[in-house]
């Protein structure tokens, strides 16, 4: 089985490729990248005027299964991923039950085996039931092929317990992903603390609740000399703290999400609950700081923080609505509009943030188009504009803040292990 991608603009920073090339895929693997390949292929994709990139690696996705199959399933979430050009993702462990033991990892693995449509990597909880009290069996989780641990949705408030977890992770060479939030400071908050919370009469979530916890987590990780990845960075101070720490820290990385460089607290006006996100949409100056952090390289990765919720949980009073938004299907388009078109990142730089760096951080052999590797490839039309419609969302939940907005940059093909698994209907 041979698949030939003709005349696309190939962007693969791992191999310093940024130009028009043909890509030949044979038996599911990348066989050859060259100009004007002339072999008889079983299928040829004409990619002229299209961009060909290594499949996106989304390192922050809530698939909700097991437990909340009404919001999303492994099947529906991974189908949404393919539509968004995502070929590998890291599933967050805050399910019901939480992925906090090798037995629960097996449960999830079985679901993935039966229904996943893209590569799903597994993260597990730092503490049992994510309660911040008792550390999980990290050595056992490592053996079960868990590639990162996180209590995402909560921070481990007890510094001593977090330190102990870091020590165990250092020993097991397990990546720790930190959700940084001091809930004593953010308690009952629903929007960014500032003019927006004042204007709307809502309780605010301060920037301190995020960056003070980032400071603590970095300090503790440095003390035990272990790797730390900071999830969903949203404000200026956080970027500054991470920039400073990176100069001396071992293996410190971080991610942001598309909504933090495209939307601001102003978008919450009108009480749109799809704009209710944690950490909250921040001020305009934070949006600029996140963009600058991406440009300068302080922010390593972009991940969707895809957080599906049902209409029953969203179409209610703002205070009562769940936090979070879906993002698998819109992420790439938002990156094209906000980062490429605004000349904050070049294509090779963007591909680093969405494919190569997340793969490196997670230690998985993805995010590059090297000969011999599984052919996970995304082909997109960077100039195609479309309006994001609720009816066309594949994810089970429809809580996208971009519904009704015009976006630019459409995924045309997603190729997984050499097979075309998504093809845009023309």
């Amino acid at each position, binding site marked *: 089985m041979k698949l030939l991608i003709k005349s696309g603009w190939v962007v693969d920073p791992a191999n310093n490729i940024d130009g028009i090339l043909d890509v030949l895929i044979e038996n599911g693997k990348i066989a050859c990248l060259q100009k004007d390949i002339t072999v008889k292929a079983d299928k040829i994709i004409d990619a002229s005027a299209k961009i060909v990139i290594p499949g996106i690696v989304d390192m922050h996705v809530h698939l909700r299964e097991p437990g909340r199959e009404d919001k999303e399933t492994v099947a529906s979430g991974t189908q949404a991923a393919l539509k968004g050009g995502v070929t590998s993702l890291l599933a967050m462990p805050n399910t019901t039950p939480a992925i906090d033991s090798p037995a629960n990892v097996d449960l999830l693995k079985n679901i993935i085996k039966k229904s996943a449509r893209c590569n799903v990597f597994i993260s597990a909880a730092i503490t049992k039931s994510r309660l911040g009290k008792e550390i999980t069996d990290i050595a056992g989780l490592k053996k079960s092929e868990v590639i990162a641990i996180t209590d995402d949705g909560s921070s481990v408030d007890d510094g001593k317990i977090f330190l102990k977890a870091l020590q165990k992770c250092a020993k097991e060479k397990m990546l720790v992903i930190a959700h940084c939030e001091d809930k004593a400071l953010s308690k009952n908050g629903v929007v960014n603390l500032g003019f927006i*919370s*004042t*204007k709307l*009469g809502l309780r605010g979530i301060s920037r301190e609740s995020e960056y003070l916890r980032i400071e603590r987590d970095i300090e503790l990780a440095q003390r035990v000399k272990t790797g730390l990845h900071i999830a969903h960075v949203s404000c200026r101070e956080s970027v500054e703290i991470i920039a400073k720490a990176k100069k001396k820290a071992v293996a410190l990385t971080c991610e942001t999400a598309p909504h933090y460089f495209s939307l601001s607290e102003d978008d919450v006006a*009108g*009480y749109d609950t799809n704009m209710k996100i944690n950490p909250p949409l921040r001020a305009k100056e934070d949006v600029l700081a996140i963009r600058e952090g991406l440009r300068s390289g302080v922010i390593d990765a972009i991940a969707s923080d895809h957080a599906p919720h049902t209409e029953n949980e969203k179409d*209610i*009073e*703002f*205070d009562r609505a769940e936090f979070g938004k879906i993002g698998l299907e819109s992420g790439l388009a938002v990156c094209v509009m906000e980062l490429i078109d605004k000349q904050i990142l070049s294509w090779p730089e963007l591909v680093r943030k969405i494919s190569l760096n997340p793969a490196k951080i997670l230690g998985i052999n993805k995010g590059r188009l090297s000969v011999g590797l599984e052919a996970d490839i995304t082909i997109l039309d960077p100039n195609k504009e479309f309006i994001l419609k609720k009816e066309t969302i594949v994810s089970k939940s429809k809580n996208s803040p971009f519904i009704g907005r015009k976006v630019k940059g459409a995924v045309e093909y997603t190729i997984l292990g050499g097979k075309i698994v998504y093809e845009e209907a023309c």
Partner: protein
Amino acid sequence: MNKETTWVRKDLLGLEDLSREEIKLILSTAESFKEVSTREIKKVPALRGKTVVNLFYEPSTRTRVSFEVAAKRLSADVINIATETSSVKKGETLVDTGRNIQALKADIIVMRHNYSGAAVMLARHLDISVVNAGDGWHEHPTQALLDMFTLKEKLGNIEGLNVSIVGDIAHSRVARSNIWGLTKMGAKVTVCAPQMLIPPGIEKMAVRVTNDIEAALKNADAVNVLRMQFERDDEHAFPQQLEYLKNFGITEDRLLKAKKNMLVMHPGPLNRGIEISSEVADGTNSVILEQVTNGIAVRMAVLFLVAQGRDKKNETSN
């Protein structure tokens, strides 16, 4: 009545969205309705055949009764729903409750809700009118409108007035609506509170901020004294009650240093001896009971206009 401006909104959700002309229209409409309450038969047929539903998720006597009286003086039929007796207790969502009321062919929902933004959300889902009777800390537009009506009636013109709002600004929907309304009408607004009750960024609403009560009262043409809701201080943000009276309470001593005819307003209910002394509340500067009377006229105007606005909307969509 103002001939140039016509009312096209089906809802009244807050004063932030309104133009100066729309506020003027409400106030002038209220002026013409005020006389109705002085008649022997206090009724006009303006809303005859219309149904107004008071949907109150928070205990309220004065606002609910004021709306009820206003609706009845316009000959509307009024139904009161309090959450204790409704299916809200059974877990019905706000939108479902609203849709049910709409299905009963009611015309206007007057809603009081403890969550900010609840009225905005409800209005988005319904074709019938929604009037916000106070949502969380967000807005209480009819209270601010009756405050402005009282100012205009007593002092002639709102433009150029110095108005000080004293009290728990952070948690007050009355403060927010007054700030939006007064600044649009050209008044100069000062907010005064202990620093912990000044919400962040409030100065962006074009107000002067002070923690000094003497400074707030100096040159003020009117002071709007907010109720200190000590019973709701779940965040422990409040000073001690006696400390508050000492530092921020409106007392006769403080009145002596202010402009002689400074109006004293209060949205009620009063905490005598906490934010305001009894001598001041019952004194000659106080217009607190006139505010209550004016509330009827203002709410009649609002109910009348939103009903009209909805009819206009239906005409254009047909």
